[in-house]
């Protein structure tokens, strides 16, 4: 087990390192430097380059950059002087984390319940309803889902606030919009897995022993069927967290994703790169946790990997 965990940590660290390196060199490849504005005089440009350390050799810049990252310094904006990635993250990350967690809770709990109900009612109207919800859910991109929810619940029927993020009523629409796709895929996987488990011999054994239907469903079927859902938790976390990008812009939530998209639209390269490293490292970390948890839950994984 220790070997497995160490290996996972090793791969994750390597991934973050590769990401940071790629980001650094891509930044140097980008068309137009940060001070290419023709209005800036040559001397001013030199001074600026000196101030930000761009006149030093590339290798030295690279090591300074890595050192900064190790100290948790993710960079600064070259467009808006004085603004740093760290300050932005400190103000915006809590919103994104809150939204992401809510969406994950919604997606996983509703997905599991829908999948189980669908499988237990196999073939009848209830099953058909949940299958259709799942099929539609997996074919709508999340920003369109968000906009549609906004249009109906917020604007036409006036049930819930359209945008911003203040109290719990504000959080419902963005969480549902963000989590819907994931909810649908969890429900599909859970349904398939439930139907597969019900054919297993141990279910027959339990039935033959006279275990009650309720107990079979709870203790044998659902517990075993949940494994494939846990396998895809890593990708799920990643997709929900990247989904915050657009959902936050749709609902005007002051989270990381909204600022990220704004930096992209403002061509604020240094800001984008700093946030990318943070964001990537965070996702790699989440994935690592999920992988380790999975190894803890299912011993077969540790051996096969």
């Amino acid at each position, binding site marked *: 087990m220790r070997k497995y965990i160490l290996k996972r940590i090793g791969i994750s660290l390597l991934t973050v390192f590769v990401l940071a390196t790629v980001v650094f060199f891509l930044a140097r490849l980008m068309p137009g430097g940060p001070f290419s504005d023709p209005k800036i005089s040559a001397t001013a440009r030199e001074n600026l380059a000196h101030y930000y350390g761009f006149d030093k050799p590339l290798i030295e810049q690279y090591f300074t950059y890595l050192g900064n990252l190790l100290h948790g310094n993710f960079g600064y904006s070259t467009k808006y002087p004085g603004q740093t990635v760290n300050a932005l993250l400190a103000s915006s990350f809590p919103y994104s984390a809150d939204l992401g967690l809510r969406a994950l809770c919604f997606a996983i709990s509703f997905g599991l319940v829908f999948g189980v109900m669908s499988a237990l009612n196999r073939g009848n109207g209830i099953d058909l309803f949940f299958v259709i919800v799942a*099929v539609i859910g997996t074919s709508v991109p999340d920003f369109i889902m968000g906009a549609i929810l906004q249009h109906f619940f917020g604007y036409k029927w006036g049930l819930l606030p359209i945008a911003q993020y203040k109290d719990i009523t504000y959080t419902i629409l963005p969480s549902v919009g963000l989590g819907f796709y994931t909810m649908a895929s969890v429900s599909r996987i859970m349904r398939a897995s439930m139907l597969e488990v019900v054919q297993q011999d141990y279910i027959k054994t339990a039935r033959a022993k006279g275990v009650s239907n309720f107990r079979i469903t709870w203790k044998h079927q659902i517990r075993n069927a949940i494994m494939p859902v846990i396998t895809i938790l890593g990708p799920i976390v990643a997709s929900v967290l*990247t989904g915050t990008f657009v959902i936050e812009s749709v609902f005007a939530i002051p989270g990381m994703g909204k600022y990220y998209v704004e930096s*992209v639209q403002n061509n604020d390269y240094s800001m*984008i790169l700093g946030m*990318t490293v943070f964001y990537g490292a965070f996702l790699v970390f989440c994935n690592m946790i999920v992988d380790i948890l999975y190894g803890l839950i299912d011993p077969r994984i540790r051996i096969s990997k």
Partner: protein
Amino acid sequence: MTEETKAAAVGALTDEDFAVVGKNLEQMESISRPILTFWQEVWRRIRKNKVAYFSLLLLTLYALLAIFAPMLSRYGFDDQDAYAMRQGLSATHWLGTDSLGRDLWVRVWMGARVSLSIGLTAALINSVIGTVIGGFCGYYGGKLDMLIMRLIDVIYGIPSLIVCILVMIVLGSGVKSLIVAMVITGWAGSCRFTRGEVLRLKEQEFVLAARVMGEPVFSIIVRELIPNIMGLLITNLAMAIPGAIFQEAFLSYIGLGIAPPQASWGVLAKEGTKMLKIAPHMLYVPAFFICTTVLALNQLGNGLRDAFDPRLRGME
């Protein structure tokens, strides 16, 4: 049936009833049903699967409309008309107009050209690269395989959207950069998949037979192994296109994908979300086409999987 009637029935039979008819060797060996090749069999199963067949027809229709609709319409995709802004669905503008008075019917199909071709090309290039590299890695194994697998671990670790965003920033927006961005991250999945399948198949007897007969390695991979996983590869291809369409929509939405006035479904949906309150059809029209296409591709993928391997039928 009582004992008596049984006895009576047996009694009614005489020895003559058991005469040897003789055997016709030719008849015994002849095949009574028409011979179907593997692909004919697959096609027959697809035809029988109503949902998959309907999806295939719908996708073909979309593809044809994407090719011909913009040519046959009297509006250009960037013709603006200040007197017909944000109109709903009507006889003159079938799907209405956008906020610059451009005809949405034409723009949707121009967008389909971009979105569908990006989806198809990216998925196709990914699976070709992935299959070749994965095939060789799986067959040879060894240090290079180890190295490539670690590389794939790293690529998997970084969320593909982040890589896409970085690549798009460096290369600038446009169809080509979108495809490049998707290929950089996308090949890893099909590579890992092919490698696994090749590892599974290469120990089987038909590969051994080919080796004994002195078939070169390249030909073993291309002629023996890949045809055996072709079905799964095609299924994966159909399943990968929706991902690429979503990705294009996402990147265009945050302003990195396709730049207006060029249309893609992502661009149209983005313009639609801005005008949702005033002209909801501007979102619902592209949303309808994105969703039905992805839906059809997913259903077709399911149908293909069942058609290639009927044992998997009913799994989800």
